[in-house]
């Protein structure tokens, strides 16, 4: 086999080694300076921010719109992912091409297991119809995406982004009514159970090797 000696191409486990190019480098330097809290937590946040920006640099699927490390890690990003929607829960079923996600990573998530609903909120579109997303048409109206009953301590931000992708497009979604974790939107679960052909909304992986080249 002709294998020239070289470094492996970037993969999701080596994002920390990716050299950030401008403007990502500029974003990183600005937010890293603003990281607050004890030293280990600050370093962890800075590393997570680096990986997130590296992911955005490598992949055209995600665009970082906001990133703050002052207390918790808070980021808003646009994610190119099919999103199931249904206005008011009763309109025609539609698929939006993109979502804007608000992701919060609190200090305790680095130390202790956390519930799956404590990380991600779908900010746009506003009429998501998904079994694991609390509906906007019922109070309190926040579209919280539940990533599972319990997520392990120290889960990586990048892994959360990937879980958000696979959960949103229903590649990895729970709508089994026998699941002890329960459903955030029962009506959506019933609808998809009755329409299995719609699941998943896409089979595309998050990151293709073509994107890695770029």
């Amino acid at each position, binding site marked *: *086999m*002709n*294998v*020239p*000696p*070289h470094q*492996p*191409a970037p*993969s*999701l*486990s*080596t994002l920390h080694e990716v050299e950030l190019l401008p403007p990502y480098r500029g974003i990183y330097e600005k937010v890293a300076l603003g990281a607050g809290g004890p030293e280990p937590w600050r370093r962890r946040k800075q590393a997570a921010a680096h990986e997130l920006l590296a992911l955005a640099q490598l992949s055209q699927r995600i665009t970082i719109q906001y990133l703050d490390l002052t207390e918790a890690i808070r980021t808003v990003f646009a994610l190119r992912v099919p999103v199931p929607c249904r206005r008011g829960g009763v309109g025609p079923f539609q698929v939006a091409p993109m979502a804007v996600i608000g992701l919060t990573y609190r200090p305790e998530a680095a130390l202790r297991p956390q519930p799956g609903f404590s990380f991600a909120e779908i900010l746009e579109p506003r009429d998501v119809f998904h079994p694991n997303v609390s509906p906007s048409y019922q109070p309190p109206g926040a579209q919280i995406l539940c990533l599972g009953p319990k997520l392990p301590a120290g*889960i*990586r931000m*990048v*892994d959360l982004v*990937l*879980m958000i*992708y*696979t959960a949103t497009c229903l*590649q*990895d979604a729970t709508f089994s009514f026998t699941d002890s974790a329960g459903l955030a939107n029962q009506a959506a679960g019933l609808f998809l159970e009755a329409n299995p052909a719609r699941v*998943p909304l896409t*089979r595309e*992986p*998050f990151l*293709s*090797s*073509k994107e*890695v*080249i770029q």
Partner: protein
Amino acid sequence: MNTASWSSSTHPAAGWSEVLLPEGFTPAAGGYERAGLRVCPAQDWWTLEYRPDDESLTSQAGDARPDRIGQAGAWKWVAQDRAFRLLLALPASLFTVETDEICWDAGTPVTAADALLRWAHETAAGVSLTGWTAPLRKVVESWFSREQLTVVAGPLLRQGEVIREPGRLALRFPILSQVPGDLPPARLAWLRALLEEAQDRWHLVRCGFLPAPDGAGQVAIAEVDLTGVPPVASEILFVTALEALRGAVQWLGEPADWLADPNVAWNFWLSVPNNEPTKGPYQMKALTPTPEPSAAAQVPGQPRGGMLRFEARDVTGTHVLEVRNVQRTTPAGAVATALASRMGLPADVPWIIRNDATGAVLEERPIGDQIEDGAKVVLSPKAHLG
């Protein structure tokens, strides 16, 4: 953390013929074939078999099972249809048509599937893997957590290792760190049969014997060798191999311990195992119970390199064990858990080891760094509840 789990695809990106026919494979019974390499695609695992034209490289019915322990690549001899076949099983999800940017052949990018098949062919045929280097150690260490190298299952405790050299990448776990030199031939045959069954049962895992590091006797090991693996598949295969090894070690550990324990007296051992390949689950029936742990005899002998021997008792003084052949690199916490299980102590509380001479509590690092050979230790519970 295994980031590969994010991929949701449960099927290869392309159909099987689309992947294999352009690579020069031709349809054959049960699959596709090229230059002695037969590929049988399936939903979860693809099975590869190597049947070279040179008959001298194959095993015939009635031959002893050839040994590939320590050889590059994950091929192994498996008993099927009254003969031994050289097989390799690989996860189906690896066989995609996405271009592997790492592998180039005369300026042409090759697909992941092709890279894997070439690796399989070259390692089966014994072709020298020039130009391949193992991934950096820190890259490899990012694929797993240290705790995964320690298998603790009840009283079973085994510490595995990653063998990473510029020209080698492998995972290895001890099954028996010391095969007694005076083990009766019948028992040794049963032990060999046990290892062979594990090799037949677990994908990727090879089992066998190696000379002991200190040259005295031999050790029984389970390994997966990933030398030469294409980078595109290295992480997935490494993680898969580690899980397979952990399963195999748990499956093998206790029966292997019984077979090698001179204190276990079974009339069953008087007959050697049938050379017919076993069918169905391996069953062992104890005809006499094992002796009480507290009555374990003192085992004379010099400490073996890398192994530790000490006396352990629980905090109540009820159970006393003469503990032998604990790898020095095993974390003290794992040793405590295994000892507690061996002594039948409650499993719902963590246990600590205390050096009886100094009263010091051993920390969560290799036990060999904290106690000497022949030490006496006490197992205490870590009470947290009031």
